[in-house]
């Protein structure tokens, strides 16, 4: 059973950076349809900054890794995703402070705190066609899912389903809301990037040495 510890947290961040870079163009295209087209570029810049920081220092806990990510995303992303993801990682860090390794309930607490941070910062609700539509089902799926890896896996599945479910929605928050009905028929880029990041958490826990 892989431990969800500081080593895993660092691998999660590095895997997130790899996946975001891989899907950079896709996220740009999704955002170009209903936003200002910079989500892929901004997220890639933020996660590259995280990797650069991780090359300098090694976090000694899950909480320290998440806080490092929060600081870098807030500083480097530039657009709305910076404070939204930054707040999510910051609140998630607080939720798991003091834990050496996460069990199922700690994973659920981490994801719930992250979701609550996004809701507090963005004032969005489920169905508004935002990141919340990935994070809320993810946090709920992680409850009672079993051990830590099972909770992460359930969360990633739910986030992907939630992201796909944003397609028919009419945006009520953010730049996409200016489009009104014309925002329907496109995936929300923030929900899609959230799903990639939560899948990266599973990959970091279940694949072999990725270094």
């Amino acid at each position, binding site marked *: 059973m892989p431990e969800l510890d500081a080593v895993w947290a660092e691998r999660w961040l590095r895997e997130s950076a790899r996946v975001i870079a891989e899907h950079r163009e896709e996220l740009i295209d999704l955002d170009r349809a209903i936003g200002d087209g910079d989500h892929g570029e*901004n997220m890639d810049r933020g996660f590259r900054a995280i990797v650069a920081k991780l090359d300098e220092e090694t976090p000694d806990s899950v909480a320290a890794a998440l806080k490092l990510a929060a600081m870098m995303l*807030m*500083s*480097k*992303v*530039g*657009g*709305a995703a*910076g*404070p*939204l993801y*930054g*707040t999510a990682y*910051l609140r998630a860090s607080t939720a798991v402070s003091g834990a050496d390794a996460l069990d199922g309930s700690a994973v659920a607490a981490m994801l719930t705190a992250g979701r609550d941070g996004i809701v507090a*910062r*963005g004032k969005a609700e489920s169905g508004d066609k935002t990141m919340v539509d990935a994070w809320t089902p993810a946090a709920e799926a992680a409850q009672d899912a079993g051990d830590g890896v099972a909770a992460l896996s359930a969360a990633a599945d739910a986030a992907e389903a939630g992201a796909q479910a944003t397609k028919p929605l009419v945006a009520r928050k*953010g*730049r996409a809301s200016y489009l009104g009905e014309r925002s329907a028929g496109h995936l929300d880029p923030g929900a899609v990037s959230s799903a990639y990041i939560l899948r990266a958490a599973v990959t970091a826990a279940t694949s072999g040495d990725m270094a």
Partner: protein
Amino acid sequence: MTPVGLLIVSHSARLAEGVVEVAAQMAAGVPLVAAGGTDDGGVGTSFEKVMEGIVAADTGEGVVVLTDLGSAVMTAESVLEFLDDEQRAKVRIADAALVEGAVAAAVASKAGAGLEGVARAAEEAVHGAEAEEAPELTEPTESAVLTLTNPLGLHARPAAILAGRLSAFDTAVTVNGVDGQSVMALMALGAGQGEQLVVEASGPDAAQALAFVREQVEAGFGEH
């Protein structure tokens, strides 16, 4: 008492600097700091610029933050989340129109309004320009009809002088029916040279307030 500082957070460095430039015209001596654009000069907002800007704008009485679009608000809120409780208590994010709010807040700060007063001045800046927001003076205790003599009339700088000083008096005052304590409302009158101002005031400082308006109008706001 040192004035409350203002931090202007915009997606554009030039926009933030421009707002600071306009507000500084109205309120010399008020700490005005621009935090616009991303760290590398692009369009966006920077957590670090906002964090540093709050420190730079605070001379002891706190900072009112004005923002442009959505993610600027979120960035400012994120910075507040990082501050400790003591620092956070000295910062207000105003829900205000950027330019109007910055001018009104700068004038209020210059006039000696505290943190809450400056934030309120920013938030009421646009509403203050609407006639129905003027105070109800059913029985003004002081009134006068004054004629503007300075060439440009009641333009931005004189409006700022009047609204700024009148805000510090314990009085309700109207000028041609609009709130005399609102720089935006006074500017919106568009009163030119030779036009008459009907000034009405009530409250404990009504006489002093009226005397101040008379003195300024008769002196042409120093613009002769």
